[in-house]
C-alpha cells in the first residue's frame, strides 16, 4: 500500500516536473494523413527503408543508438499489433521510415496576451526545444508516402534522462501508430 502510494505520489511529482520543464508544453501533438484513395489494409508486410543520414538538429541525438533502437523496437511492436508483418523478403508491401527533428521554438503567447488570459509574469514568452518524430509508410516501387504520422512535443530535459526519453518514445510511437486505419 505504502509502496503504491509512493509510486502514485512519484507519478504526480514527475508529471508536475515534466510540465514545468516543458514550459507548459508537456503535451504531445499527434497527427497523421493518408494519401487519398489508399487502402492500407491492402498492405501487410513491411521492412525498414534506408535510415536518415542528415542531422536531427541536435548533436546529442545524431547517430544515437539508444534513441534509434528504442524507436525501431517500439515501431515494430506497434506495427505487429496493427497486423503488419516484418519481412526480410525482397519485396515488402511497404517500407517504413522514421525521421527525427529538434528545433528551438519561441512561444510568445500572443493569443494569451491578446485575449488577456494571463497577466504580467505569466505572459512571458518561453523558449523550448521542439522535438518531432515522424513515421512514414512508403510504397516501395513508387516511393510515394502512403501514410504519415507524427508527434510533436517539448524535448527539453528529455534526452538528459534515458528512462524518461524511452517512455516518451514509447508514448509517441504508440500514439502515432494508433492513428493507423483499422484493418478489420
Amino acid at each position: 500500500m505504502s509502496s503504491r502510494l509512493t509510486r502514485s505520489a512519484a507519478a504526480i511529482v514527475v508529471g508536475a516536473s515534466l510540465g514545468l520543464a516543458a514550459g507548459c508544453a508537456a503535451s504531445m501533438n499527434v497527427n497523421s494523413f493518408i494519401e487519398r484513395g489508399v487502402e492500407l489494409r491492402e498492405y501487410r508486410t513491411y521492412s525498414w527503408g534506408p535510415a536518415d543520414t542528415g542531422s536531427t538538429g541536435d548533436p546529442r541525438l545524431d547517430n544515437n543508438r539508444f534513441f534509434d533502437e528504442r524507436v525501431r523496437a517500439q515501431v515494430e511492436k506497434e506495427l505487429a499489433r496493427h497486423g503488419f508483418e516484418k519481412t526480410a523478403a525482397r519485396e515488402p508491401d511497404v517500407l517504413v521510415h522514421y525521421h527525427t527533428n529538434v528545433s528551438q521554438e519561441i512561444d510568445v503567447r500572443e493569443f494569451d496576451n491578446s485575449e488577456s488570459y494571463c497577466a504580467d509574469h505569466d505572459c512571458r514568452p518561453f523558449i523550448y526545444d521542439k522535438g518531432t518524430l515522424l513515421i512514414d509508410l512508403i510504397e516501395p516501387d513508387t516511393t510515394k508516402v502512403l501514410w504519415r504520422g507524427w508527434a510533436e512535443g517539448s524535448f527539453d530535459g528529455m534526452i538528459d534522462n534515458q528512462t524518461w526519453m524511452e517512455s516518451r518514445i514509447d508514448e509517441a510511437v504508440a500514439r502515432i501508430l494508433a492513428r493507423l486505419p483499422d484493418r478489420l
Partner: protein
Amino acid sequence: MKHLVLTTTVVLAVTAMASGCAPTMSVSSHVDRNLDFAQYRTFDWGPADALPTGDPRLDQDPFFKDHVQGAVERGLAGRGMELTSAGSPDLLIHYHANITERIDVNKADRVYGYCQGADCPPESIWYEAGTLVLDFMDAHTNKLIWRGWAQKSVEDMLRDKDKMADTIDRAVSEMLRQLPPR
C-alpha cells in the same frame, strides 16, 4: 531506487528550466545497460563518424583537440583504463564539438519588455551554445555503448584559451563521472 530515479528526474527538470536562461553547464549520458563495463580496459581514438555535425571553429582548432584528448586520456587513466595505440583496443573513442546559435529566454524577456532593471541581463538575446559529445564504441561490435555530452554557452571560451581549457576539463570530468562503475 525509485526515490533515486524520482530525484534525478526532478533535478533534471529543474535543470532544464534553469538552462533555458543560464550559462551553466548541463551534462548527461546514455548507456547500454546490458553491458558489463569491467570488460573494457584499453581504448584508442577512433575515426569520428559523419554525424553528429562538428564545428570548424573547434574541430580545426589544434588547441581544442589536444585539450579534449588530453582531458579524456587523463580521466580514463584515473579510472584504470589504458590508452593503447598498438594492438586492438577494447574501446574506440571519438568526440564531436558543435556550436549552435540559440536564443536566451531571459534576454528575450528584456527585449519584449517583460523584465526590468537588474532582472534583465544586458547582453544580446542570442548566444552560442556549445555541445561536446563523447562516444565510446565497442571496438569489436562497432556499436555505441556509451555517449556523454556537456552543453554550455561558449562565447567566452572562444576568445579565451584559459577559459576554454577550464571548460573542457570540467566538461570531460563531469561526463566521465557518468560512466558506469567498472
